[in-house]
């Protein structure tokens, strides 16, 4: 009955009893990860058959007095196989290497470029599985990173999986996210939709954030950083667990994990499944999500290993999309929980904002130890997703929409209680002689994504390692809109204001029914080929790397609505991007290390910047974005204290922004050039073991993120290509603070082992210098140079408790979490208003107090 919790239990036991241990003989050593040589803080060292022992410090080291008669010690740590060492009295055990308890983890770590402390020269924070179990509670996956420097994570609208994360002020399209080394940023827009990955936290083994350019060899859009997620793979040991949790607003969760362990025939299978449902803290944001995870490993022989992993999380959730002003929230009966995106249709609650998605991702990893010096890791993966979100369409679609700031628009149909008035829409649709005036649609956003990632690594000599590989992808995304509900009408006619059919291949008066495509249907295809290489040098205290990558991306757009057959596909549009980076880490001694890294890359503009105006119009000025970044860092490790400090400078040049404006009733497209942003700052994080039972964690991050230039653009008349009038636009952005993420953050945490089985923790997080979001291309008024609304600073308290006990001979753990203990009211997300103040800005309140409880039984 071995299990992951055992280490913790043992550790706790030791903490209580070590004080009483009788001093006899001193034993010391350093515990490290066998695959990376990274020190392992918190590993337990116990005399076999007794409860006496100690825990390794932040530098992995330990020293303790052996009781008489001790013949061997057991060294164990969560996620690693335990190791027994026979003793011959007082001695220095030297470096003790623990091997991972997961099959194939080492290879995945390499492919994912997981950073190693005191070796990889990047600023990094790692969240362990244990920490996720203790602290997650009702939080969304990205929020686990909130106590690490440079991070601003919120629940945004508050729907299940609708959370977002910004890193060093950059939004998700500029944060590389990789699961087991496979990049998952959307191919077309770089965004990461966490709802696609709901349930991921249940099977995450470690979550590492590398700030800045990061250690990844593969080309990623990492301007702000890289989030490197390693999932469970197949467990080396047999067993399983069952968990049941409840939480605020009807939240309920079940989860089951089963592992065969590594069997004699070389096979190992691990399965996890979970189901989560709830009503949501925000009104009408109920949800249901499932997740499944299957990993099958096969050790073919000494040199070959195969792992097949499939992960998926089908879910549906009602959303909150429309933002509001503070005054309107305050004057509403639902207050901060107000949701404007629903009403009652035929007596049933019905949201206009709703999302359903299922994105299974399967990968087959092959690891081949070619010879002593050379190995080849290959991952073939596929992701076939289906789903989309609800929308509204029709000549009078504004019946179903509020203004963007949550005000009732001139056409909005609302009941006296402020709900969307479906009944009146249904009545008018039924009475209309031209079919439904407003309908509910599903915006389909499905895709197929196939990729191959392969990395060959060889030791040139004792100190030099060369690796290189390929990254090949094909992607096809479907974008269309289908009628979901005619809302009382018998049919729908898909025409524009002038009565012309939106699908030129269909008669304007075609009577369309549920399931028919309307408005648009334009698949996009992307072919991607990347080459990467890296040279690593390691000798004694110095480690250094140089890496380069080159990426060719090709985009093609097909438009089945606006073009005649034969003329629907664009030519492939080519973009060449490349990156180069280098860095070095030097360990001054066993306690101090310094590092530096520097990099430059150019990345292809996103799909939507290449094809303009929602048509096959190719942007003649689509430019590569250029990013230059440099960083220095310092680290300190001692037995009781670990501190990291680093400073960064990231300059982002020619940020690609295209905007459409109406001039003389015609659409003009402006491709803004010359927009540069500079993000710089200082980050610090620390851990201090005050006593054996009490530890303190701290973080501070001070950023200065600003636009540092004005942008200019010449317009193109999209409605009349013959028009040669010179229209220019200037974006007055110089000196504006970057919005949407707190530039100053800090965190303080205390963890206390009250007694053997009980651990409590509390965390405080502070967010300051938070400016409201604004679309920089809207800042084209020379007389308006004001900063965006500076939102109120806020701080939140979380508490967690963990209790271990035996139930029917099985190890059980009870977790309890309270987020926002003091029910602080705060605005977490805002869009800047016309007067740059709280009156005109609109956004979302963050959640009030939430709580959850979970029982996990291991077997």
């Amino acid at each position, binding site marked *: 009955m071995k299990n992951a919790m055992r280490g913790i239990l043992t550790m706790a036991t030791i903490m209580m009893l070590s004080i009483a241990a009788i001093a006899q003989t001193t034993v010391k050593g350093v515990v490290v990860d066998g695959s990376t040589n990274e020190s392992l803080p918190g590993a337990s060292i116990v005399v076999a058959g007794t409860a006496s022992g100690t825990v390794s410090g932040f530098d992995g080291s330990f020293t303790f007095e052996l009781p008489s008669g001790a013949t061997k010690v057991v060294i164990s740590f969560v996620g690693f196989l335990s190791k027994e060492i026979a003793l011959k009295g007082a001695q220095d055990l030297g470096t003790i290497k623990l091997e991972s308890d997961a099959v194939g983890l080492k290879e995945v770590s390499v492919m994912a470029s997981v950073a190693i402390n005191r070796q990889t020269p990047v600023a990094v924070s790692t969240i362990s599985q244990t920490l996720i179990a203790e602290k997650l509670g009702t939080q969304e996956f990205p929020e686990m990173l909130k106590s690490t420097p440079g991070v601003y994570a919120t629940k945004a609208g508050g729907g299940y999986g609708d959370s977002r994360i910004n890193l060093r002020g950059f939004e998700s399209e500029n944060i590389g996210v990789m699961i087991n080394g496979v990049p998952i940023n959307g191919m077309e827009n770089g965004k990461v939709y966490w709802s696609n990955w709901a349930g991921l936290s249940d099977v995450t083994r470690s979550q590492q954030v590398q700030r800045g350019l990061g250690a990844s060899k593969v080309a990623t859009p990492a301007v702000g950083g890289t989030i490197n997620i390693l999932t469970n793979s197949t467990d080396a040991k047999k067993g399983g667990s069952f968990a049941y949790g409840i939480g605020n607003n009807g939240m309920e969760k079940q989860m089951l994990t089963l592992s065969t362990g590594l069997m004699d025939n070389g096979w190992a299978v691990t399965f996890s499944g979970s189901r989560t449902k709830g009503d949501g803290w925000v009104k009408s944001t109920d949800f249901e999500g499932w997740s499944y995870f299957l990993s099958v490993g096969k050790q073919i022989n000494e040199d070959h290993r195969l792992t097949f992993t499939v992960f998926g999380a089908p879910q549906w959730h009602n959303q909150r999309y429309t933002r509001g002003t503070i005054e309107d929230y305050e004057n509403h009966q639902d207050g901060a929980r107000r949701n404007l995106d629903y009403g009652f249709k035929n007596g049933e609650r019905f949201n206009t904002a709703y999302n359903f998605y299922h994105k299974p991702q399967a990968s087959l990893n092959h690891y081949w130890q070619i010879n002593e010096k050379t190995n080849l890791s290959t991952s073939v993966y596929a992701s076939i997703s289906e789903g989309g979100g609800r929308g509204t369409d029709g000549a009078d679609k504004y019946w179903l929409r509020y203004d963007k700031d949550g005000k009732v628009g001139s056409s909005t149909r609302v009941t006296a209680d402020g709900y969307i008035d479906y009944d009146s829409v249904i009545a008018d649709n039924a009475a209309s002689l031209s079919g439904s005036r407003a309908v509910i649609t599903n915006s389909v956003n499905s895709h197929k994504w196939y990729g191959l990632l392969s990395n060959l690594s060889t030791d040139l000599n004792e100190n030099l390692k060369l690796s290189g590989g390929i990254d090949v992808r094909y992607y096809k995304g479907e974008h269309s809109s289908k009628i979901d509900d005619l809302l009382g009408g018998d049919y729908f006619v898909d025409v524009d204001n002038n009565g012309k059919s939106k699908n030129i291949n269909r008669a304007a008066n075609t009577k369309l029914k549920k399931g028919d495509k309307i408005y648009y249907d334009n698949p996009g295809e992307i072919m991607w080929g990347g080459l990467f290489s890296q040279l690593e040098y390691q000798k004694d205290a110095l480690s250094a790397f140089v890496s380069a990558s080159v990426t060719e991306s090709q985009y093609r757009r097909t438009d089945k609505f606006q073009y005649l057959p034969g003329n629907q596909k664009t030519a492939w549009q080519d973009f060449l991007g490349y990156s180069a980076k280098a860095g070095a880490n030097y360990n001054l001694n066993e306690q101090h290390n310094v590092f530096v890294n520097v990099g430059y890359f150019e990345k292809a503009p996103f799909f939507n910047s290449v094809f303009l105006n929602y048509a096959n119009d190719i942007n003649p000025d689509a430019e590569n974005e250029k990013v230059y970044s440099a960083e220095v860092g310092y680290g300190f490790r001692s037995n009781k204290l670990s501190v990291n400090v680093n400073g960064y400078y990231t300059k982002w040049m020619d940020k690609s922004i295209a905007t459409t404006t109406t001039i*003389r009733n015609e659409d003009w497209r402006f491709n803004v050039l010359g927009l540069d942003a500079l993000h710089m700052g200082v980050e610090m994080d620390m851990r201090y073991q005050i006593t054996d039972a009490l530890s303190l964690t701290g973080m501070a991050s001070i950023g200065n993120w600003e636009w540092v230039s004005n942008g200019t653009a010449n317009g193109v008349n999209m409605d009349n290509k013959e028009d040669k009038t010179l229209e220019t636009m200037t974006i007055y952005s110089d000196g504006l603070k970057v919005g949407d993420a707190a530039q100053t953050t800090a965190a303080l945490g205390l963890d206390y082992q009250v007694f053997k089985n009980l651990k409590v923790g509390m965390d405080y997080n502070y967010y300051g210098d938070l400016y409201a979001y604004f679309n920089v291309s809207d800042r084209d008024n020379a007389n308006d140079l004001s900063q965006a609304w500076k939102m109120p*600073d806020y701080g939140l308290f979380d508490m967690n408790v963990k209790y271990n006990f035996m139930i029917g001979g099985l190890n059980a753990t009870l977790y309890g979490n309270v987020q926002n203990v003091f029910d602080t*009211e705060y605005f977490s997300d805002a869009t800047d208003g016309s007067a740059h103040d*709280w009156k005109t800005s609109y956004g979302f309140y963050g959640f009030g107090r939430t709580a959850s409880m979970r029982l996990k039984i291991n077997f």
Partner: protein
Amino acid sequence: MKKILYIVSLFALVFAGCDPMEDIYKDVDKLSNDNNVHSLEYTLTADDYSDIGGDPKKYESFSAYAPATDYLPEFLDGKYPTLDVSSSVKVTYDFYRGSLNYLGDYLDYLEVLAAIDSYTLTTADYDSMGTDQGQPGKYNNFDSGIKASDYLPNFLLAKYPNAIENDELAVTYKFYNGSANVDITEFWVFDGSVWTKSDKVAPELAEGVTLYELVADDYDSMGTPGKYNNFSSSDAPENYLSTFLGVKFPYASEGDKFLVLYKYYAGGGVTETRAKEYTLTDGTWMEYTSTVAKTDQYLKTANGWLFDPTVLYTMGADDYLMIVNYVKDNVGAEYLDSYGTAEAYYGSNSYYVEFNIGSGNYDASFATWQDAVTAGVKAYLPLKFPEAVAQVDGVDVNYVITFAGYESSMVDYTITFKCTKSGPNPEFEYVEGPTVK
């Protein structure tokens, strides 16, 4: 353990008391709770007139003799006791403006006319007055040289040998005015020995009113009234006349007035001549009514409710189009877009119902969009309100115009002008704005 308690307490003390939204909430409260200011609209009901009492109760309306300003302040005080200063109510009420005086006179005249015999001269009659050059029978008419007054006394004596004193006759004859023959009707009276022209004349119609009398074809064109060539209680004229005028005078312009004369079967074998006045209003021929709906704004002040002559108006698509057309006619057609619905001088756009206030959408000669919109509204006001008045009851009249400004999003603004000279050709002076509504 104590150490931990201290640390925890410190945590709690430092952070728990913080309420990030505190300052904003105070401001929110100031905005909403302290004052109960609203802009309302209200239409008086029959019960309201009854509550008001006096003449308004009797007639269920106000009039020049019982003006609304005398009654409404007190009424609003009772109706909205809790509204705070600077609230406003737009009150819609019935106003008796009286019937048309000239219409009564004209109908009286018609009645008189109906009682008098009439005679229209025939060719034989002219011939009987002589057919030589210089005599009526030559061209069968009179003219400035061959005067009717010279011939008619003798002609009538011969024609009506049995006439008695005070007999009256309407005589219609042809008169050559130098270019054409016109019919002239005159009234002649017999004093027992001679016929003389009386001084009776048709009463004058109100200024700008055109008289039209329905003829048989007109009744026929209306269907059932064509059966007897009249209206009746079952074929009420108000059901037909508005439509009829629209068909008959398709090119009439806004504000044209017609006095329509028609026959009405009153029952008991009596058919009367009656009349209604119609005015072309917003493309429809509207009958004159003695009682009309009026809307006035009242403002709550420290001294109670006061009549506020301020004109509040929100611009619609037609209004933006007026500016577009103004630019076309007075500034330059090159400022218009290809659809003719938007102009880039002031930035008015009737398609999107807005001023496009993004730079580049108004002329560069304006320093700011505010200047452009101010100039645009100033040009528009005299077109929109040609009959604007500068003062009502000694109070200056302000025009508060609400418009939509589009830059990156649609925002409603208000701009205020003061009428400094009453219409026609009124003049307006900029007061303040634009400010976000």
